[in-house]
């Protein structure tokens, strides 16, 4: 069964289920078998829910047997990043702090995907508390890039990207605070969407930086991505930052036509620090879009270089506040101590990893008396300038285009010793979170055998235009259909 069902897109599998060519039980079992076969190498999963998944699949099969109409995602096996709450199922955030945390409620996305009839295969590895760009900061394990096991999968949603790229799930959800969906999607050769801030409910997403965090889908194809967005997007009264707007049917934007669409190329995203081979690959992609009738012109987002410091001050300040709740009292890890203050300090010292502590320190400093104006307030003002850059660009263009990441996937350990070097690799993704706009990464070629991603950025709630360009590009290229060789053959890592 594995050979016929594994690796197909959600829309193809839906047809097979509708026509009873395959049952949800067979499909789910095939994915469980696949996880057991390849996850010892890839390490994408922290929790696999075989019994629960098989029971859910049996329920769907019963509905099919009774002749009920199947919803687009019904009976489809998927998985969630381990920072989205699942009632009764451990949600660890890849941290020792939450190693044994069993949420008493579901995240809104968990509920919506359940209502859509999907099958939850398990929970996926990530950088601890979503802080990192390589998934090397997980307390539990290192997830490996299916295209080259010596390379990182990107982060922080590394497990979510690898599970899709390695055919261990049909689709997954990740979260993106400064690139954590788009960069791993680019490194692993899959489609990853960071929706507009406020488009998808954050209720039950364990908070990192509340004004930047946003949940979105990883998929094999652009159509699948739009289908998953249909299921998860929309107003939620339980998230006070959820924006009340009418969610469109995102599949309506999937037309193979971009004639006359105006695409801007911000020159700052092709400058210093961008691997020349990556830039070359993306420029070839731009030519493809020109040939298909897009109107392409260069533009400028002049404050781009200030995005990294502004982002790291804002994100860490918010994180230091959000993570204050981990005090060993109500849930999570607790260290023994004779008095309560000592218990707080030891609990946090032992429960958090190095990167999380570093960011709490940085954020606490940025918010501390005497430095607030110089760092946090200054960063918020620069955030305004960055947002204005985008507003101006979107007066002239429908969509902006850049590389998703400056380089292809790098080797384990290559950047983990130097936090600043790791932060600088986020230059092409963090401005988007500061501006709150949507952006998608789609497969756009290979450099030294590793995938590269093309990033498309849109106006707030302009996901539709992104899907239209992404779909047209996908229909006229074949990068999305290429698969990593998981037979154990190790390729040479990128030149970097």
């Amino acid at each position, binding site marked *: 069964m594995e050979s016929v069902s594994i690796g197909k897109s959600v829309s193809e599998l839906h047809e097979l289920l509708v026509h009873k060519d395959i049952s949800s039980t067979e499909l789910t079992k095939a994915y469980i078998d696949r996880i057991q076969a390849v996850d010892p190498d890839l390490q994408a999963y922290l929790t696999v829910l075989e019994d629960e998944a098989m029971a859910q699949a049996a329920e769907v099969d019963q509905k099919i047997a009774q002749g009920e109409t199947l919803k687009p995602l019904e009976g489809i096996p998927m998985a969630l990043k381990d920072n989205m709450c699942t009632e009764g199922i451990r949600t660890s955030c890849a941290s020792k702090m939450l190693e044994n945390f069993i949420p008493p409620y579901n995240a809104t996305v968990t509920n919506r995907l359940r209502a859509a009839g999907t099958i939850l295969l398990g929970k996926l590895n990530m950088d601890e508390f979503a802080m990192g760009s390589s998934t090397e900061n997980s307390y539990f394990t290192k997830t490996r890039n299916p295209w080259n096991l010596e390379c990182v999968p990107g982060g922080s949603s590394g497990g979510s990207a690898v599970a899709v790229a390695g055919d261990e799930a049909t689709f997954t959800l990740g979260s993106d605070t400064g690139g954590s969906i788009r960069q791993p999607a680019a490194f692993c050769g899959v489609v990853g969407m960071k929706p507009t801030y406020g488009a998808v409910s954050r209720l039950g997403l364990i908070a990192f930086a509340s004004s930047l965090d946003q949940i979105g889908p990883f998929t094999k194809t652009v159509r699948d991505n739009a289908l998953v967005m249909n299921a998860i997007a929309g107003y939620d009264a339980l998230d006070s930052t959820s924006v009340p707007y009418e969610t469109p049917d995102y599949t309506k934007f999937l037309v193979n036509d971009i004639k006359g669409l105006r695409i801007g190329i911000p020159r700052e995203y092709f400058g210093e620090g961008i691997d020349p081979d990556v830039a070359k690959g993306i420029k070839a992609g731009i030519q493809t879009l020109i040939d298909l009738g897009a109107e392409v012109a260069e533009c400028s987002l002049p404050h781009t270089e200030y995005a990294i*410091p502004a982002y790291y001050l804002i994100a860490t300040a918010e994180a230091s506040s959000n993570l204050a709740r981990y005090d060993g009292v109500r849930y999570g*890890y607790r260290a023994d101590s*004779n008095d*309560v203050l000592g218990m707080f300090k030891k609990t946090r010292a032992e429960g958090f990893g190095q990167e999380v502590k570093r960011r*709490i320190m940085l954020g*606490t400093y940025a918010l*501390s008396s005497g430095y607030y104006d110089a760092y946090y307030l200054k960063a918020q*003002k620069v*955030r305004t300038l960055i947002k204005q850059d985008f507003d101006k660009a979107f007066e002239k263009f429908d969509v902006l285009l850049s590389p998703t990441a400056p380089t292809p996937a790098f080797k384990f350990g290559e950047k983990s010793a130097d936090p600043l070097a790791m932060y600088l690799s986020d230059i092409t993704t963090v401005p988007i979170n500061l501006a709150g*706009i949507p952006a998608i990464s789609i497969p756009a070629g290979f450099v030294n055998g590793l995938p590269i991603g093309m990033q498309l950025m849109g106006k707030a709630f302009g996901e539709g235009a992104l899907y239209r360009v992404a779909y047209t590009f996908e229909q006229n290229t074949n990068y999305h259909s290429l698969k990593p060789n998981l037979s154990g053959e190790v390729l040479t890592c990128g030149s970097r």
Partner: protein
Amino acid sequence: MSISREDVEYVAALARLELTEQETQEYTEQLNSILGYAAMLERLDTTDVVPTAHAVPLHNVLREDQVGSSINHEKALRNAPDGEEGFFRVPKISLT
């Protein structure tokens, strides 16, 4: 603006983090390096710029004051590291 060892110890106390000697040393170096880089923000004149707290500003998100459902007592306490009779138990709170 450079950050001293004492600054790091002060911030660690604010953040309720017990640091090892090695961590104190490392964070002193790393915070200097990261905040040194962030000093580039000073080049921008932001005197008349309004700060952005949220990219999609929503104001006065209100709802009717109605009783809804919430998780029960037992569920809320299930993850507690230590508790008794419906309470969380913590070590003694000393003021010195």
